[in-house]
């Protein structure tokens, strides 16, 4: 009887695990079925590297959006990663228990704020500051990067902190024994040793930034042109889908699904790199 129960539970868990997997398969298949025809018609090169997006005129080029995604994500990484790294080093190495017990839950809370709230806050707070002090319409790559930099903090901080904390104690003790100061130890022993985990955290953070939609839709301005400065508006792959989904039909709809394919592939590549980096250790 007991062995039957064991087996039964096993099968149930297996089925449930596979149902999660099948949802992924279902979504992937659906996106490809809906999106591939238009890519086949337009041509993969013309679709990804086309400069003009004008579905009502039958022009489907998403290159401005690819550039927009890259620019905003890069901006978020430049602004967010240094802050996140410093924060994780502080938490793992310097912070007394009292302070880290305050900071850690606060950062987790940061991850729990809905993205639309970030977007709204950016719209009423960051956008006017940029418009009034730096010029331009305010809705810009800079505004999007600032929002995304904040949004990727929890991911990068917690993964980097964990990889710093999971290093063998021996590394630190050895460095101290050789006469290294605390900072020297962090810089030349701990950071290099935890590198793969930190890189994985950064890449996952970048993946989060690329996939974010709601927050950036409100602050980016969504213009379909290649931005020339960080104060110019831009459009990312995700916001393009989000903003035009409502009225799209026919080829336009297919083109949005095709945009989803490109996005899916980019995120799959990023995730594999992150997994590879994390496993290398």
């Amino acid at each position, binding site marked *: 009887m007991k062995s039957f*129960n064991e087996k039964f539970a096993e099968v149930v868990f297996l089925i449930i695990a596979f149902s999660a997997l099948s949802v992924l398969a279902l979504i992937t298949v659906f996106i490809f079925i809906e999106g591939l025809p238009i890519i086949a018609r337009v041509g993969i090169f013309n679709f990804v590297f086309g400069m003009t997006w004008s579905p009502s005129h039958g022009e489907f080029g998403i290159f401005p959006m690819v550039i927009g995604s890259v620019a905003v994500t890069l901006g978020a990484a430049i602004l967010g990663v240094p802050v996140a790294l410093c924060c994780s080093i502080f938490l793992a190495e310097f912070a007394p228990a009292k302070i880290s017990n305050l900071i850690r839950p606060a950062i987790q809370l940061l991850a729990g704020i809905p993205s639309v709230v970030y977007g709204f806050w950016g719209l009423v707070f960051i956008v006017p500051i940029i418009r009034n002090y730096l010029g331009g*319409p305010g809705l810009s790559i800079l505004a999007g990067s600032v929002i995304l930099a904040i949004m990727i903090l929890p991911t990068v901080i917690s993964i980097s902190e964990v990889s710093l904390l999971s290093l063998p104690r021996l590394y630190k003790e050895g460095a101290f024994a050789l006469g290294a100061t605390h900072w020297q130890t962090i810089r030349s022993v701990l950071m290099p040793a935890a590198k793969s985990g930190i890189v994985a955290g950064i890449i996952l953070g970048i993946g989060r930034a690329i996939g974010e939609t709601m927050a950036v839709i409100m602050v980016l301005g969504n213009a379909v042109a290649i931005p020339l400065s960080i104060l110019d508006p831009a459009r990312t792959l995700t916001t393009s889908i989000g903003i035009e989904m409502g009225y799209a039909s026919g080829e336009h709809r297919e083109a949005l699904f095709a945009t989803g394919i490109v996005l899916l592939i980019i995120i799959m590549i990023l995730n594999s790199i992150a997994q590879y980096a994390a496993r290398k250790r």
Partner: protein
Amino acid sequence: MKHLALKYRSLSRIRAAVCLGILILAVGLTSACGKTSGAGLIVAGSTSVQPFAEVLAEEYMIQHPDAFIDVEGGGSSAGIVATQSGIADIGMSSRDLKGEEKSLWNVEIARDGLAVIINPGNPIQNLTLDQVRDIYTAKVTGWSQLGGSKSKIHVITREEGSGTRGSFESLVMGKDRITPRALVQDSNGATRQLVADDINSIGFISLGLVDDTVKALELGGVPATRENVINGSYGLSRPFLFIARSNPVGQSKQFIDFTLSEEGQKILATEGLVPSAGGVGK
């Protein structure tokens, strides 16, 4: 240990019950969907008219619980073709009928006015249609070229596929394209908010949604008002039409009558349209 095994057993029983429940729910839902989408009135066409038709249909279905109206987009031309071929019972068009199409039965359910709006702090009051077009093609990029401040113009447009954008393109742009450098907002409300916040911006929204936070420009000296839309002197307006293959009967007639009734017209007015003068059918 025995306790654990017991727990397992009851857990798996609960799980089985939950699975069964989900299965029944899923089957029930799919069959329910199958039932409703089969029959009913099909209204198809202009995506500009679509949201208004949906509101009307919703209200109509509340009053007639056994009726079902399916409102679909596709565009004015597609709607007209679908009506001609009988796929749709009622077609929606946001442009006048041309040529052969004029033989179809049609009625104007309302007019839609478009307002070109700027920030109230901007001194400019009046632009010509050509000047608006030049702004939107980025031929004119600074307010100083129009007699305003030295700042650059922040052009705001709507997203591809939006009916408001569609009417702006056909009424103002003609064959020219809106500059890709224009900011894109995804609703009338968001456009209005941005114009209210940014002194250098220009945008366009449905006339009914203009309020004190923004300033509607005069076009060629004609103020953007409902009166001027009705008497035809304000250029940026277009008719919203319902079309049928022949004189509508039965459910089609009932729905069209509801749309043209005082109640239907009131709904359209609150949604921001200019009610039709009398809804004269042909």
